[in-house]
């Protein structure tokens, strides 16, 4: 039996064991994790078995680009105007403030760390720092959804959390995509290389024109398998186009998702298709992320630790300030931002997208930080969400009881 075959069998065994173990942990301790898929990717990748070598990686690149683009479409599909206009302005202000503060705090802190540790020019250090800021801004909705289902309660805190994760995703994607338009290598063979503003317009243009054309292309198609093919082709075309231009596929596909969900008559079917494919593609993304991981040659431990600490502080602090400035502390509580610490697929997508870009500084470090954050935070995310939602529920119950007893006394 060849050594490669033994390695594959070890990988399969390792994966199955990790999957069973994580499944048990998930049920027992409320852990939302895809860590076993990351592990599988590392085992399959060039660091261990080389089953996913450079040629295989290239061959399966369509799946990877599709997975990146799909993340964008899923994020965009959350922005249904019909549903968004029903919410008052305050939750938006809170969400945007929290997202902006997290982005600014992590980007600023990491710029300082990179400048100090690696003796980089601030103009260079800001590129990986903003990429990490975008990773930090992303929050996973999975843990919140799981807790809401488990408690069977969808109070104002849950609604605020769900809106905030959507706004976080929007902010993260826009910030990261703009970063790539600013830090864009000029294409060869053109008369004049496009300016950053023009790259940004091209990026938005792919999304808007693509979204409109795909809306017309899909028409009133309602069959799930046909919609799946159409959406897969559309996502691959848009994300392939963006990747070909060395732009992020996330922004154009997010716009496509938003346009489709707001204009199509089959929006429910589109959402069903997106939900159906989201999980398998997320796992593909995790596997490729694991396979693409290369240990950073730089000292990575301190920057990653700083990233985790600053992100945690920024999420909790940003959430607190947002709630305080909008008089929402009694409803949300001071530490509601803890529930936003989970990272999820978008963080992996941004990290991987950054890694795949050419000529960006500290690519491995940014990617390592994103992966570590995903593994660490996703283990605790559902627990943290449960503590926030649970205490909000108790607070609401106490307020209700207090109001009832007040009425009784008055009577």
């Amino acid at each position, binding site marked *: 039996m*060849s050594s490669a075959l033994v390695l594959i069998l070890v990988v399969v065994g390792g994966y*199955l064991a990790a999957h069973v173990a994580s499944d048990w942990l998930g049920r027992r301790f409320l852990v939302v994790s895809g860590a076993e898929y990351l592990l599988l990717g590392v085992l399959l990748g060039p660091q261990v078995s080389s089953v996913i070598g450079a040629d295989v990686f290239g061959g399966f*690149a369509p799946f990877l680009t599709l997975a990146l683009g799909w993340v964008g479409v899923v994020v965009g599909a959350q922005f249904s105007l019909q549903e968004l206009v029903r919410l008052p302005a305050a939750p938006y202000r809170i969400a945007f403030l929290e997202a902006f503060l997290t982005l600014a705090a992590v980007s600023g802190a990491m710029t300082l760390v990179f400048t100090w540790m690696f003796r980089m020019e601030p103009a260079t250090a800001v590129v990986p720092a903003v990429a990490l800021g975008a990773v930090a801004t992303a929050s996973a909705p999975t843990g919140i959804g799981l807790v809401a289902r488990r408690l069977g309660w969808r109070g104002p805190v849950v609604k605020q959390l769900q809106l905030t994760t959507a706004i976080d995703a929007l902010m993260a994607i826009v910030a990261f995509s703009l970063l790539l338009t600013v830090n864009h290598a000029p294409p060869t063979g053109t008369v004049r290389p496009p300016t950053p503003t023009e790259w940004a317009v091209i990026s938005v243009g792919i999304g808007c024109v693509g979204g409109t054309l795909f809306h017309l292309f899909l028409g009133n198609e309602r069959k799930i398998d046909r919609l799946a093919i159409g959406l897969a082709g559309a996502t691959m075309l848009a994300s392939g186009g963006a990747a*070909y231009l060395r732009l992020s596929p996330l922004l154009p596909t997010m716009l496509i998702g938003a346009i489709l969900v707001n204009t199509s008559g089959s929006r429910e079917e589109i959402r069903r298709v997106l939900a159906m494919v989201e999980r398998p593609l997320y796992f*593909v993304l995790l596997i490729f992320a694991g396979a693409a991981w290369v240990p950073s040659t730089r000292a990575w431990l301190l920057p990653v630790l700083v990233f985790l600490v600053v992100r945690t502080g920024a999420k909790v602090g940003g959430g607190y300030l947002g709630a305080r400035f909008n008089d929402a502390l009694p409803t949300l509580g001071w530490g509601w931002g803890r529930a936003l610490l989970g990272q999820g697929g978008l963080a992996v997508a941004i990290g991987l997208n950054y890694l795949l870009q050419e000529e960006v500084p500290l690519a491995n470090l940014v990617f390592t930080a994103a992966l570590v954050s995903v593994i660490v935070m996703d283990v605790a995310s559902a627990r943290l969400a449960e503590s926030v939602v649970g205490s909000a529920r108790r607070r609401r119950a106490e307020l209700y009881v207090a109001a009832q007893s007040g009425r009784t006394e008055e009577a």
Partner: protein
Amino acid sequence: MRRLFILVLLLGGTQLILPLGAQGQGSQALLSFGFLILAAYTVGELATAVRLPKIVGYLVAGVIFGPHVLGTVTLEGASQLAPVSQLAIALIAFLAGAELRWGEVRDRGPLLLKMMSAELVCSFAALFGLLYVFRGFVPFLADAPEPQVIAFALLFAAIAIVHSPAVTMALLTETRARGPVTRTTLGIVLLSDVAVVVFFSAALGIARMLVPPTGGGAVVSVGMVVWEIGGALLVGALLGGVVALYLRYVGKDLAFFAILVAFFGQEIARLAHVEVLLTLLTAGFVTENVSREGEGVELLHAMERSAAPVFVVFFALSGAKIEVQQVAALLPLVIPIALVRAGAIWTGMRLGARWAGAGEPERKYAWMGLISQAGVAIGLASIVAEAYPEQGAVLGTLLLALIAVNETVGPILFRRAIVASGEAAPDGEGAKAARAPGAATGH
């Protein structure tokens, strides 16, 4: 028409951004691949409108936008996407294996074996005879000495008798057909996958004795053939067992798990030097028959849900590989061969059906499902090209032209068989065609 117009706009859009991109990067292949999927989807719908199977539309889209006509997908891009195509065929093989039930194999095994044997022997003899008799018209046999003529006629016939599990599964999924004709066709196609390995290995062994190979390539021994088939059954059974255990004790994320099974299955088969398709077929068969009631069905449903995009990808990429100019140049030679092959399949199946005592529908229609050819034959042709670089290349080109013709005509015939035998599901695509005026009578 609306979709076609949008497709043209999208094509224009992609051409617009091409100068701004990084030339030679893999992302260009992705861009064109996304376009190819949308194109295949559109042409597939158009094919349905004119009562053709969708996969013919996917193939046509692949041909039109492939490297040999419009060049939207470049040669480099098509070769970069080869792993996607291989994964698709692995998934299709697993799905095909899972379609077979042990009870059915036990009850219908003798009938299938008899029909398959008659069909394969007839086709093999007819194709060998054709090439041997009309050697003067075949480029690489015209002036060749007698042993070389026999050797290459044997190899050609051994490859040309191959069927296509992918086309069979695609049509069954599209029409959701159930009945004796479809079951017989599927059974013969799957069984013949094993038989063809034996046929081909024996033919290659004889050819090596008659004409010593000029190129590399491993020497084929009886032991190797036994391992290739027996090993595939063993590895496939083990893989199926692992999948059944997963279904029993974990049973989550089945669509994703199906992709992993296909990926690992083909990698393991390749490393163990066993037949890939047979490994996955066996794995599918074992999974379906060993799993508890309902568990295997869930996996099957998960795979069927992902089957439609897989077929689009597989057949569009297959179409992109067809070299139209080369096929057109060889048509005067290929069409008679294709006709003789079809006639031999028809004769073999009639004889086999009589021998096995099969029913009227199988006798009448099952042969139409055996015309299609696809990936397996291409793989075998490349083995010949490795052993005999000079003649193998010409033989490969001729075979590719024959496969291109059969790959296009085969699905149309099989669909007609399904519709005419009344086995298409009421809500399947085939039934819609059947309900169309004059469809059953062919008018």
